[in-house]
């Protein structure tokens, strides 16, 4: 237990470390998963340039081709290039995953903060409503909503699907954010804002919301993974994205179920992509939580 005598170098004014580098240092797994997410986003955004083939181009000459240098992941029963479909599929997965998680988490967070802020009867009613929604597993509730809402596509995106996945996310986020907001609610700065006679919306959005951003962000990333999985499941069940759009869940269903013995690559690669995406978002959410939570700080 000895220490060196202070030198000129370490008595210099310390600089605050770069938060991004600090995140990579403390959470190497989080950094790797973030890298995977970035690659996936790149592939999704620039799919027309990245994908080697048109994902919809049918080629009956080369159906059920095994993975080769020509078709990295092989082809499906219509001779479509699986690799290109996976790349375009990341676009579908990310768009639906992001938007539904964002919509669900945001609505949930506002509900949670309002519940904590107003308290009393309002809190009771919101929480009982949340209890009811929480009684259903995420995918079951999504199924109910998707069955109830009529198909509605804007700019190639299934809005009904987004709503269906967002609804079950709302109560889950509302519960967690409410807990965080309850501790913010009793902070003297909120009392100070009330004593100043500010409006409810000002206190909720200006004084409370920024202070529950950490749990909100963590829930947001974690539910992107859940939403991608839900989208894949719904598509697999034929309730989500429909043919011929490229979607990972859809690629597992349909004639993939008939041919997977002869052409296992038809299900192997989409399955791996779903796992990889869910894994990356979950891990990133976890790392973000550990990084933002001061209790985990050394």
């Amino acid at each position, binding site marked *: *237990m*000895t*220490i060196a005598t*202070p030198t000129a170098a*370490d*008595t*210099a*004014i*310390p600089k*605050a*470390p770069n938060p991004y580098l*600090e995140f990579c240092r403390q959470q190497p797994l989080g950094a790797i998963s973030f890298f995977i997410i970035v690659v996936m986003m790149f592939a999704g955004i620039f799919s027309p340039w990245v994908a080697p083939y048109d994902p919809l181009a049918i080629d009956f000459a080369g159906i059920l081709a095994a993975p080769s240098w020509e078709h990295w992941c092989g082809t499906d029963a219509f001779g479509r290039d699986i690799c290109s479909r996976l790349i375009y599929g990341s676009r579908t997965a990310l768009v639906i995953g992001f938007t539904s998680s964002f919509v669900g988490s945001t609505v949930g967070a506002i509900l949670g903060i309002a519940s904590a802020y107003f308290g009393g009867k309002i809190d009771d009613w919101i929480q009982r409503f949340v209890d009811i929604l929480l009684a259903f597993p995420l995918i079951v509730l999504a199924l109910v909503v998707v069955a109830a809402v009529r198909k509605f596509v804007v700019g190639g995106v299934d809005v009904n699907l987004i709503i269906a996945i967002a609804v079950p996310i709302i109560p889950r986020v509302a519960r967690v954010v409410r807990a965080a907001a309850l501790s913010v609610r009793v*902070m*003297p*700065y909120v*009392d*100070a*804002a*009330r*004593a*100043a*006679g*500010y409006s409810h919306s*000002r206190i909720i959005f*200006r*004084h409370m919301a*920024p*202070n529950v*951003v950490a749990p909100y962000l963590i829930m947001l990333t974690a539910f992107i993974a859940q939403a991608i999985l839900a989208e894949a499941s719904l598509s697999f069940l034929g309730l989500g994205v429909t043919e011929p759009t490229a979607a990972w869940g859809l690629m597992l269903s349909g004639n993939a179920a008939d041919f997977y013995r002869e052409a296992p690559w038809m299900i192997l690669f989409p399955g791996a992509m779903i796992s990889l995406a869910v894994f990356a978002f979950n891990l990133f959410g976890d790392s973000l939580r550990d990084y933002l939570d001061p209790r985990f700080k*050394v």
Partner: protein
Amino acid sequence: MSRPVQAPAAPLLEVEDLHVQFETSRGIVRAVEGLSFEVGRGEVVAIVGESGSGKSVSALAIMRLLPRLTGRTRGRITFDGRSLLDLGDEEMREIRGRDISMIFQEPMTSLNPLLTIGLQITEPLTIHLGMTAEQARARAVELLSLVGIPDPESRLDQYPHQFSGGMRQRVMIAIGLACNPKLVIADEPTTALDVTIQAQILELMKDLSRKLNIALIVITHNLGVVARYADRVIVMYAAKMVEQGRAEAVFHEPRHPYTMGLLRSVPRLDRPRGMRLETIEGLVPNLTNPPPGCRFAPRCPFRVDICGQEPPLANADNGSQSRCHRHAEIAGGKIAWAASGTGSQQAQMVREGALLSVRHLTKHFPVRAKLGHAKAVVRAVEDVSFSIHPGETLGLVGESGCGKTTVGRLILRLEQPTGGEIEFDGINLVKASPAEMQAVRRKIQVIFQDPYSSLNPRMTVGQIIGEPLHVYKLAADSAAATARVAELLNQVGLRPELAERYPHQLSGGQRQRVGIARALAMEPSFIVCDEAVSALDVSIQGQIINLLEDLQRRLGLAYLFIAHDLAVVRHISMRVVVMYFGRVMEVADRDTIYRNALHPYTKVLLDAAPVPDPTVEKARAPRLIQGELPSHMAPPTGCVFNTRCPMATQECRETIPPLVEKRPGHWAACIKV
């Protein structure tokens, strides 16, 4: 003069050249540098310093309880002939709890809530002394009676939540004493307790250390506590010891400018009230980048060229040691702090008529009842009446749980009163419509206790202060708002550049100033100060009190000053209300209440407050008050104070005494006076 009589040949604890440093993401913090001191057997040594001075870290270093990953300890610590820093973990664990034990600040969190008190006391006995369960239990009973817990046999099987705060601290002391340690380290042992309880605990610890010949290291920021206890005092500032010596010497003849300043900046009950509090200007330096030379030089009024060099710890004339180049000049009386305030400043600004009158204010909090039980209520505030004139400061004193904070929150309408009236500027706030309330809100503002949680961490200082200007359209445009924010910052003694900063980049005192500026932005005529200075260090506390007084003079503000520190309340208030258990006990103007208090509770409160003067404290008779605050679930009948009152009779248990004007302007709620 020669060195004072030292403890016999080999001291119990010898700390030599102790250095502790932490690696943080913001750089290396040198928390303790070159600390050397000795503690003799049975001696009581106090380590005094403001937050961040390194006093608690030194104690943890002695116990080897610092986080291993980030903390580095260097130096020599010899305890009873063994070098603690060279011991293996196993050997150190043997010493901890058996030879050296530690008492922490928070009795509420230092006991495990899921284990019985008995188990927690007997644990060290069975582990360290190898006692059998029966032996340990017998010893535990003995220990509990030693620390003054009645009916120890049955209380052993109870859980921590069944004990009050004071009782828990007694249990902590009992655990600390369990194995007959040679040294007890107490880190702020009474800071979390009320004055009357604090007095009891101090009495107990002093008594026990004498009786059992235990050496005691007391770490505290409260100079009054030190005066009562200590044989020797060590003063720390910014990681270094600046002065050490016998308690009498340090208090009466300080030989370091920091000690001199610190002693002057405490408001004191045993001295006539000065017009203005003396302060030490400036801030405690940042330990990642401390100033070269003397650490105190940037704040020292006696700074000379040589202070740019590190001063050695020199022997002063009166046996103390001082880390000041000019200690000989201080001893010669050539250097003394100039009085900063002049007497004529406090012109009476109080105007006639009541700005705020509170009449029969009552607040009951419902308690969730168990199934099949009647719904219970906690009577937090019961029939409280007082008034405040424009430009006046009304002090509201009482111990924790007496309802003083609730009164403040009721006036701010953060809580809805159960009954009574609050009239402000002719408007009854209890019945006011939202629109009327909105208009009044601006006139009543608040300053909170904790400067760390009262500012929104996600807003800059400029946004925090500028928000009311924007919401209430108090500034014509954004340029005018920026100018007004700068003006407000200036008014509270901060540089306008701070508007760009976030609260976590400011010190405690600076944050409290921001809180004041935020209140002032509304242009209020009345401010509720809820323990506004009690979370601040002594040298900063004086600065804030002076600021509040200056603002009052300049802007004609009225204050409701809620506090538990009697000396601070005496300094700032013109009239004082004393509360106990939800009720007003006594109301009088400041000088009357501190000189001729009528109510027995006020007398007890005044008697319990420690005074930073060892001669006065050591000559003092044992305290009057016994017992603890009654439970809110089972309030006493009749006078709420009858359970602890030295004068109580049967009559007091039967009638609730009304608040009666005993002398002109002097009200008391007691049938005995």
